[in-house]
């Protein structure tokens, strides 16, 4: 019975945790320009994330180590500094974008410019990390994050052509504006497959003391959770396609994105959009700040746990404290949140090889996983994701120059 409770909770966590500033912004921009055509990218990104989460969760449940632990232990310090630096920089950028997302939501709600909100958001987030436990952070953001279901309601109320949507779930090339198309595709993939998500997930498995008994919980959580989460991202794309595309509106400001739910749902739609943006970005802010602190603590072997009093793991709690404040600074100085989001999603996409390729090695290491090493399905998926990550690394910079901005 307890286990089913945990499965339900895990699924809710993925739904609430999946949709955040990156997926909202990139999906809405994609839908506004290319109608449903980019929906397949969300299918690809979501499926990839589901596999990566299942594997890092299995790794933690079987080996009682997090993915970051194993990156250091199995590959040595000299290799470890590469993913450490890459994930640190990329996640800090994404953290800044999330704080920007919350700040924009508060600007839309109050009329007070977003830059004034950055530091208060960081302080409230910090206070929750300081006083809260792992389950408060995980479950609190998950439950409140269910407000994102609004996107599903919005999409259905606009009566999309299901046949067209069905066909868009398979890859296709654009008839026009291909640099922009692929640029948005890359940023959508960066928004779906973020390293902080699986680093946080594998640290969470240790915080929740998972064992081999939890392998089924892990599989269902990763699968169902991402199915729902990816579904919501597609709903955002569909809504934007039906609201913006016919009117020829290209989205380049958050004030425009905010209107995406006002067409199907009226004034309530605007309020619900603001609530969704605010809550999901705030939840991600907490998770990313923790994810970077986990990475540092596990890589260097410090004492860590979100369930300990900060005095018992001083370096760990100092890390998230400094990071969350540091990430708020660019927003407080007036950096454009939407441009920052687009940039950080592309940089995320480019960073994927250094965390995906080592996983391919670890998931086939019998010393770590014993009989729970990858089967051929997982290995095929992981090889495809690894190849995809290399393509993203090579394509990111040229596409940023050709299709960005």
């Amino acid at each position, binding site marked *: 019975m307890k286990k089913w409770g945990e499965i339900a909770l895990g699924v809710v966590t993925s739904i609430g945790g999946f949709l955040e500033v990156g997926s909202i912004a990139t999906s809405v921009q994609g839908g506004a320009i290319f109608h449903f055509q980019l929906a397949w990218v969300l299918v690809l990104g979501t499926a990839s994330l589901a596999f990566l989460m299942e594997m890092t969760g299995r790794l933690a449940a079987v080996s009682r180590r997090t993915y970051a632990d194993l990156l250091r232990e199995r590959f*040595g*310090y000299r290799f470890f500094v590469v993913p450490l630096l890459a994930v640190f920089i990329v996640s800090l950028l994404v953290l800044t974008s999330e704080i920007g997302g919350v700040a924009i939501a508060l600007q839309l709600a109050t009329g007070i410019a977003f830059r004034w909100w950055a530091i208060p958001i960081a302080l409230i987030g910090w206070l929750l990390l300081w006083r809260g436990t792992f389950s408060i952070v995980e479950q609190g953001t998950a439950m409140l994050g269910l407000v994102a279901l609004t996107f599903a309601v919005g999409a259905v109320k606009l009566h999309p052509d299901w046949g067209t949507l069905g066909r868009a779930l398979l890859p296709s090339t654009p008839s026009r504006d291909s640099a922009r198309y692929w640029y948005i595709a890359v940023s959508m993939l960066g928004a779906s497959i973020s390293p902080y998500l699986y680093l946080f997930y594998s640290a969470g498995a240790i915080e929740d003391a998972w064992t081999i008994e939890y392998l089924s919980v892990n599989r269902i959580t990763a699968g169902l959770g991402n199915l729902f989460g990816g579904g919501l991202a597609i709903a955002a794309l569909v809504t934007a396609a039906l609201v913006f595309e016919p009117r020829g509106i290209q989205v380049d400001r958050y004030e425009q994105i905010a209107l995406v739910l006002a067409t199907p749902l009226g004034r309530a739609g605007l309020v619900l959009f603001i609530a969704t943006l605010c809550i999901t970005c705030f939840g991600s802010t907490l998770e990313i700040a923790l994810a970077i602190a986990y990475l540092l603590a596990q890589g*260097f*072997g410090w004492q860590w746990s979100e369930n300990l009093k900060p*005095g018992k793991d*001083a370096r760990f709690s100092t890390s998230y404290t400094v990071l969350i404040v540091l990430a708020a600074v660019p927003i407080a100085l007036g950096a454009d949140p939407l441009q920052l989001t687009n940039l950080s999603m592309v940089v995320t996409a480019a960073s994927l090889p250094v965390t995906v390729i080592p996983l391919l090695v670890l998931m086939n290491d019998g010393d770590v996983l014993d009989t729970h090493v990858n089967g051929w399905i997982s290995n095929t998926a992981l090889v495809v994701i690894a190849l995809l990550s290399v393509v993203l690394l090579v394509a990111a910079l040229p596409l940023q120059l050709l299709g960005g901005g």
Partner: protein
Amino acid sequence: MGAVHLAYEVVDSQLVDRHEQKIGRVDALLLEAEPGKPLRVATIVIGAAARARRVGGWFAATRRALRALAGIRAEHESRIPFSAVRRIGDTIQLDVEERALESEHFERWLGDHVICRIPGASGASK
């Protein structure tokens, strides 16, 4: 425990103290050379200088130069005799106290001077 593969099972492993508190990872292993005796694995090193040398000579040299420029002298490194190893498993347990380790200097300093001045930092549990 039979033969122990040093590079595979010891280097980079998580270290814990007597009370299972995490105290860093094995950053380097030293061999001891005493006149007239064979070399033996003698010491576990925990510290940033040892880690920097693992990345490469150039990295360690850059680190030294930057520290010299900033006027930082103290190198808070722990060298623990291999005889303190109690157990090699998921983690390596050492017969030491976290509070007594030089490599935990920064953890203690942060705890005593920064973290504990903020309300809600100490106490039994959250």
